[in-house]
């Protein structure tokens, strides 16, 4: 194909990426485009690199369904994300963790050396993988230019093409990955561009698959049938049962992909650092596996088609590109080429960004601080320097990858990827252990990771160096230093297992053993213990972390402010400090707590710029921290939790009080309205008729009485509630009091024409009671019944299992079931309700409830058979 077309199309694709990223950044000022579970899930598909795009077909064509293993692992692991990743995301948000080195270092007492270790190993493990992507891009470029693909690709032209790609991707990553100092802000442009690339590569792969399956062949069955005829299929799909290690190999490779999908720097960047909302995980848990299966549907058909119709000299990794080229279908070939470009560039961009942040925050800045290089900086140039270092780190990572590219010649795509998988798997014990095992220590983690990496290097890197002629082949055949059980591919005599699974088995075994062993036999520092508590219990009380001021020592606000000024401008620092002051007054912090809160606050702000490990180092340079014992830590946590609970209760009581006052005022306004209006009429109309005048005056008086009654009731209730109310308890006969109450209402009942039925217990009912108060409750029940009854009222008393019962029933409309408890609350209607309560039941029932409660009795209302029953019970044992 014409090289100019390919170059122009590639260039246009990359320009499109820039435009999309730029647009997303611009748009983010008003609305974030990446705040969606779908974009999140797509951004995770950065997992599918050129290795998926080209390598899967290659692997399928040589060893059958093995290629699926690295998708099986993530699919199985996805539901576990809800437990593991939700915890990590929560921790990362609270402690400003932005990369895997920060995560491990922070868990194990914010250890700087552990951060350095993880950073170095991540770079070692991932740079070859980036180089692999560069190789894939340039190879695909060479193939699409030279349609015959039979000539070996000139490594010089490979390197030249890779060079331009590195430059463009470097510019992209610097431009969109180092836009801001604040790590807390998401890289909207990059995430959006990556999500786009994920869609693009999926479509490209599916189009290629459909083209091969349905246009070159007659559908799936046609390909399989023809492959079967030539015995390709049976050869590929045959599972070698004589091979006993096979299930173990499968298990190990799936396991490593399970860890890789979470802990590869680029995956962690997308899953955790760029996560906008932990709820997005819920959808990603099924969307991401779905994506993986979609992109794999056509792998086997393409592999078979390649074997059936292409020249055997063509590398199987290139089948997907070579097939449309062989058919002279240049549009599809170009689309496939761009899909591969998308897969590779997304991986390179995100990995480079993630590694550069690790290098900056966990290696370069700590070294600069330790070596006191920062003394040469002007105070206001720090922020600028941090950004310079990040940019330099990006260039460094890409340069290393480019350098590495010149070493790798004929390595298949899959194996280098898997070497990376085994490398990042070394972080899994320390991370997962750190989330669930409080006793795990930094020493255990350090030695575990270190040993794991030594074994990884010995079993996987050494053989590569041997094949490049750097070391003698003797090591492979006779063992290291001639010791027979130190052969890189048959360590300790474990033979017959393929190198990747073999390496994972031994590296993780050493790693886990050292991690557990050294954790048990080493002691945690107080800082480590704090972090262990926080990590393990983050879902339980992670949000209380801000209030857990577990810190003691000397710190001066001025020193901390001076630190902040190096990264933020003066007005911003002043504003932040003002906000801090306000909050500490609001939360009533004592001086020691305030100091602790200030240190944490400063650390958090700094962590936004330089990561939590470096931030801690910087803060530690101006404050003196004292060691706290485990008991002291627990005591502080407990105290702060109790205080929080107490505050909540107070706030609730305060709210109730406010509501009560506002309702009382409201209730007083109603009679006041009539009084004012009627008095004005009386005053403005001296010529009113006597009868009307009397009527108005009478109403004014009765409304005044109503107000007085209300005020008395409020005072009464207040006395009960504050416990000042004194009751005079005597031996009283309940029926006598009931009869007395009925006597008071006898005339009213007659006048209103109600039918009254009274059924009293035949024997005397003796209770210990305040006579007047009990009468008050009975009268209250009766007056309510009189207000709401249609025609009938029933009054009843009886004794049942040691309890005296009294009830008043009426045939009125009754109380809605959802308000049955509320009507015993003082003024049960809340401010926001517009439906008025039945009149007169305002405080009477609330007071009745208090009175009955003082008598150790129960009070309530029941509705049945169209009657409403108000009742109370009293104990009869005197």
């Amino acid at each position: 194909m014409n090289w100019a077309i390919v170059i122009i199309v590639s260039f246009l694709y990359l320009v499109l990426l820039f435009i999309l990223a730029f647009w997303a950044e611009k748009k983010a000022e008003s609305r974030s485009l990446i705040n969606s579970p779908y974009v999140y899930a797509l951004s995770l598909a950065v997992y599918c690199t050129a290795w998926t795009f080209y390598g899967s077909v290659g692997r399928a064509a040589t060893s059958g369904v093995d290629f699926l293993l690295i998708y099986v692992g993530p699919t199985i692991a996805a539901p576990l994300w809800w437990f593991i990743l939700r915890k990590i995301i929560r921790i990362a948000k609270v402690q400003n963790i932005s990369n895997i080195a920060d995560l491990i270092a922070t868990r194990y007492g914010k250890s700087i050396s552990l951060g350095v270790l993880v950073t170095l190993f991540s770079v070692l493990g991932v740079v070859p993988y980036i180089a692999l992507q560069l190789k894939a891009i340039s190879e695909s470029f060479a193939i699409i230019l030279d349609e015959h693909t039979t000539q070996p690709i000139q490594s010089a032209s490979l390197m030249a093409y890779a060079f331009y790609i590195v430059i463009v991707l470097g510019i992209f990553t610097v431009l969109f990955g180092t836009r801001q100092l604040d790590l807390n802000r998401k890289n909207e442009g990059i995430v959006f561009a990556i999500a786009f690339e994920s869609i693009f590569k999926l479509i490209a792969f599916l189009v290629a698959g459909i083209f091969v399956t349905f246009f070159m062949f007659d559908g799936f069955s046609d390909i399989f049938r023809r492959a079967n005829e030539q015995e390709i299929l049976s050869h590929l799909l045959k599972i070698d049962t004589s091979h006993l290690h096979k299930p173990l190999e499968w298990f190990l490779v799936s396991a490593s992909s399970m860890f890789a999908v979470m802990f590869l720097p680029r995956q962690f960047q997308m899953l955790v650092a760029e996560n906008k909302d932990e709820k997005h995980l819920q959808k990603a848990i099924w969307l991401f596996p779905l994506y993986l299966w979609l992109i794999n549907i056509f792998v086997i058909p393409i592999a078979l088609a390649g074997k059936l119709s292409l020249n055997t000299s063509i590398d199987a990794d290139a089948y997907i590109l070579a097939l449309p080229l062989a058919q002279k279908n240049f549009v599809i070939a170009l689309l496939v080429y761009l899909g591969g470009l998308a897969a590779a560039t997304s991986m390179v961009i995100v990995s480079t960004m993630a590694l550069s942040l690790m290098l900056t925050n966990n290696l370069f800045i700590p070294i600069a601080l330790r070596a006191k290089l920062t003394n040469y900086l002007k105070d206001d140039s720090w922020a600028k320097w941090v950004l310079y270092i990040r940019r330099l780190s990006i260039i460094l990572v890409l340069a290393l990858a480019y350098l590495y590219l010149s070493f790798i010649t004929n390595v298949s795509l899959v194996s280098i990827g898997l070497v990376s998988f085994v490398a990042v798997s070394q972080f899994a014990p320390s991370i997962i252990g750190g989330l669930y095992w409080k006793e795990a220590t930094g020493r255990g983690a350090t030695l575990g990771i270190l040993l794991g990496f030594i074994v990884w290097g010995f079993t996987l890197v050494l053989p590569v160096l041997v094949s490049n002629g750097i070391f003698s082949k003797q090591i492979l055949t006779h063992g290291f230093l001639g010791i027979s059980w130190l052969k890189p591919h048959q360590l300790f005599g474990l033979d017959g297992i393929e190198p990747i699974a073999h390496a994972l088995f031994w590296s993780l075994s050493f790693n886990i053993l050292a991690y557990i062993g050294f954790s048990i036999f080493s002691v945690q520092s107080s800082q480590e213990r704090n972090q262990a508590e926080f990590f393990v219990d983050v879902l339980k009380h992670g949000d209380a972390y801000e209030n857990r001021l577990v810190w003691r020592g000397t710190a001066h606000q001025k020193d901390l402010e001076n630190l902040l000024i190096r990264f933020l401008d003066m007005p911003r620092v002043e504003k932040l400090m003002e906000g801090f002051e306000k909050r500490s007054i609001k939360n009533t912090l004592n001086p020691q707590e305030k100091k602790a809160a200030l240190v944490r606050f400063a650390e958090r702000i700094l962590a936004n710029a330089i990561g939590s490990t470096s931030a801690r180092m910087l803060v530690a340079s101006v404050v003196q921290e004292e060691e706290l014992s485990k008991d002291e830590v627990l005591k502080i946590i407990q105290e702060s939790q109790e205080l929080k609970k107490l505050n909540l209760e107070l706030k609730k009581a305060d709210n109730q009080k406010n509501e009560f006052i506002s309702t009382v005022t409201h209730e007083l306004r109603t009679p006041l309205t009539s009084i004012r209006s009627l008095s004005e009429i009386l005053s403005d109309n001296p010529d009113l008729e006597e009868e009307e005048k009397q009527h108005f005056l009478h109403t004014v008086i009765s409304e005044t009485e109503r107000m007085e009654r209300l005020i008395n009731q409020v005072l009464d209730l207040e006395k009960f509630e504050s416990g000042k109310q004194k009751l005079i308890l005597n031996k009283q006969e309940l029926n006598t009091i009931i009869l007395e109450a009925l006597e008071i209402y006898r005339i009213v009942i007659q006048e209103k024409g109600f039918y009254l039925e009274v059924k009293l217990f035949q024997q005397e009912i003796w209770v210990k009671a305040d006579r007047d108060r009990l009468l008050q409750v009975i009268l209250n029940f009766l007056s309510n019944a009189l207000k709401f009854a249609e025609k009938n009222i029933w009054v009843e008393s009886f004794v049942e299992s040691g309890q005296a019962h009294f009830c008043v029933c009426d045939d009125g409309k009754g109380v809605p079931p959802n308000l049955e408890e509320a009507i015993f609350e003082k003024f049960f209607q809340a401010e926001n309700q517009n439906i008025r309560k039945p009149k007169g039941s305002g405080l009477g029932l609330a007071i009745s409830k208090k009175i009955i409660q003082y008598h150790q009795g129960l009070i309530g209302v029941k509705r049945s058979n169209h009657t409403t029953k108000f009742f109370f019970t009293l104990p009869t044992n005197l």
Partner: protein
Amino acid sequence: MKVLIVDDEPNILLSLDFLMKKEGYEVFVARNGTEALESITENAPQLVLLDIMMPDVDGYEICSQIKQNPEKKDTKVIFMSAKSREVDIQKGYNLGADHYITKPFSNKQLIAKVKELLQ
């Protein structure tokens, strides 16, 4: 001119009934929301003095029914309520009320507003 007074407090009806009659309006009264809605259909008043908190249908509901009915939307509505929070008042106006007066009110001011709206 027909005026409907809606309130579940008989004594407020007593004074408003007197005041409106004295101004020469034809007066109808309703003691709850249901009665009010019936009276609006039946008597077609030009103005409704409307309480908010009532035992069955609340005043907001009645107001929005009036203002959403194409035939009734020219009926003037004055809320009179003890609810005096800004949100409650704003809600009243949002539903299309012509005025909102808080209890207790001055007779003179109320009459002036009624006259103004009925001109």
